[in-house]
């Protein structure tokens, strides 16, 4: 009998890797500093002991080892490349965008590239502009890629398992701020989460709040606070930036007639922008107020603790946007 437990996001990722590596002996993991401790964010804990020889600690060579991930995936079976920080994916963009994302297409369907590039992303503390970026929109722009941005431990586990059973390249972005967060997760090894399916994390009638990554949790807190004022907010985790679950969002907006979209990446050309544009295009007549987007301002992430907050959407920004669409 499957059981629900409260586990952390980090444990959920670890569980997904462990269950799938047990199931599929072809799965390999490549990454920097993943041995012996399990990586900078510790998600590989205990895996090397259970699966000796299948975790390969690479030199500092993202273009090299992600390129090898493409080759090993093409030559048969899923490969996970951990890029230590999403920011470092900029040095293996060819491998992800021109190679992994294109091979199935360019070969007329001959090739499959089950390559999962996992990377911690988003705001840290005191790490400045090169260890804090959110790239979901960047990768979501590329046909041939799937992009996961799970907001909960359950989404992380289910989507990573799906990625490992699928035949497509996946960019799997894990918001650093979520690793220690707990949530209910099933121990059923056959429970997967479908790519392109969002989830309603809190049902509500008055406003739809689509919030990804860390914004999901800020949004849930705002929803709890505003409930005291009698505002009933529906909070949706889109879970994936590609494909986006537009149907779920449009159906919700049809009921609530108001939409706020919050994500951590820079506002211009963001996931929030894409969702807002789609609702404007396909759900315009459901709307009783203009759509509001809440996202990071167009600036690199600054260093000082006095500057950091200005670079990131806060709960107050989400609350203000909600009040605005209700006004």
């Amino acid at each position, binding site marked *: 009998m499957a059981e629900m437990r409260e586990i952390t996001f980090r444990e959920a990722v670890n569980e997904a890797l462990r269950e799938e590596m047990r199931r599929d002996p072809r799965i390999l993991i490549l990454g920097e500093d993943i041995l012996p401790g399990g990586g900078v964010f510790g998600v590989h804990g205990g895996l090397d002991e259970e699966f000796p020889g299948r975790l390969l600690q690479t030199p500092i*060579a993202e273009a*090299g080892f992600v390129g090898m991930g493409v080759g*090993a995936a093409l030559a048969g079976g899923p490969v996970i490349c951990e890029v230590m920080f999403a920011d470092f994916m900029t040095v293996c963009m060819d*491998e992800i965008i021109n190679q992994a994302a294109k091979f199935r297409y360019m070969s*007329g369907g001959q090739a499959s590239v089950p390559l999962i590039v996992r990377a911690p992303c988003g705001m840290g503390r005191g790490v400045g502009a090169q260890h804090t970026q959110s790239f979901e929109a960047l990768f979501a722009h590329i046909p041939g890629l*799937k992009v996961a941005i799970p907001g909960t431990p359950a989404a992380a586990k289910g989507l990573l398992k799906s990625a490992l059973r699928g035949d497509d390249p996946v960019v799997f972005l894990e918001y650093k701020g979520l690793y220690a967060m707990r949530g209910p997760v099933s121990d059923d090894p056959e429970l997967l989460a479908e790519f392109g399916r969002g989830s309603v994390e809190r049902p509500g009638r008055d406003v739809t709040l689509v919030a990804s990554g860390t914004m999901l949790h800020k949004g849930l807190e705002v929803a709890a606070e505003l409930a005291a004022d009698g505002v009933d907010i529906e909070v949706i985790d889109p879970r994936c930036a590609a494909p986006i679950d537009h149907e779920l969002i449009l159906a919700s907006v049809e009921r609530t007639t108001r939409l706020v979209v919050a994500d951590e990446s820079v506002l211009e050309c963001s996931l929030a922008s894409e969702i807002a544009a789609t609702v404007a295009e396909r759900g315009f007549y459901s709307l009783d107020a203009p759509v509001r987007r809440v996202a990071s301002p167009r600036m690199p992430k600054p260093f000082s603790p006095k500057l950091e907050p200005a670079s990131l959407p806060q709960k107050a920004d989400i609350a203000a946007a909600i009040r605005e669409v209700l006004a």
Partner: protein
Amino acid sequence: MTTASGDNAARALHLDLYRMMTRIRAFEEAALYESGRGNVYGPLHACIGQEAIPAGLAPLLRPTDYVTSTHRGHGHALAKGADPQGMMAELFGRADGICRGKGGSQHIADFSVGMLGANGIVGAGYGIAAGAALRIRQAGRDDVSVVFFGDGAMARGTLHEVANICVLWKLPVLFVCEHNGFAQWVPSSENLCTDAVAGLMAGYGMPSRQVDGTDALAMHGCAAGFIADMRAGGGPAFIDARANRFHGHNSMDAQAYRSRDDVSRLRAEADPLALFRAATAAAGVLAAADMDPLDAAAEAEMRAAAEAALAGPWPDPADAWEDILAPRKAHAHG
């Protein structure tokens, strides 16, 4: 060896080498001809002058070995066993092309024979070949992975990243540099800090040799040693194969950077087919009467491939929407 069976084996090898060279030449000439007639869509990078490099390796490779290639990839594909008619149809953008008209010349691939694709990105093949080699070793197979690349591609940082890992992890990757002296129209001397690239790669700790890449037998001999070592568990090796391209960088290159005389001289002095014919005749292994029919057969094969490709169907515009992602599978979902 002077035994009758040794003579027969040598004769068979010579025939194989020459047959592959003349097939590659005939394919490229047919493709260039069709390009001139407007039947090939987009630019074409012919490897005429460099045929001995893939041909030298062809008899050494199994379908379960892997090859990654470049923008100049037709010879590599043929050497790995790809079907020329499917290739020609691909150049024409037809639905029966080897990649269903989705790839074209620069992305020719035949996964059924381990040909992991020509590539439009210079220097992208290193990692892919090394990853395939990693798979080989993880599975306990004795196959090898060959990465073909140009001298221009030696300027890419991916070479360093991958060469370092291949040596560290002892991966069975044969690096084959097709050193033709140009990257588009930039001479190697303006692109690389050294001409002695085998020395450069020896610095990584991999066996590295410069070979006359117009000599199919020399290519074969050198690669045979390296590949045998890899099948026995050895690590990577590097071949600096010197040859020339007789045509422009591609079918749109007017070659303002070199004279007609330069090219005529190369054709007279460094044609791998002519050199092979002369050498094998002098050694008394093959005679013109052995090779002329191979030329005729290759020409007929490639003409037929072009005719068939011309008669092939065009893709339906709706096909553009296929092969972007894998077909959906049924799963249990939460």
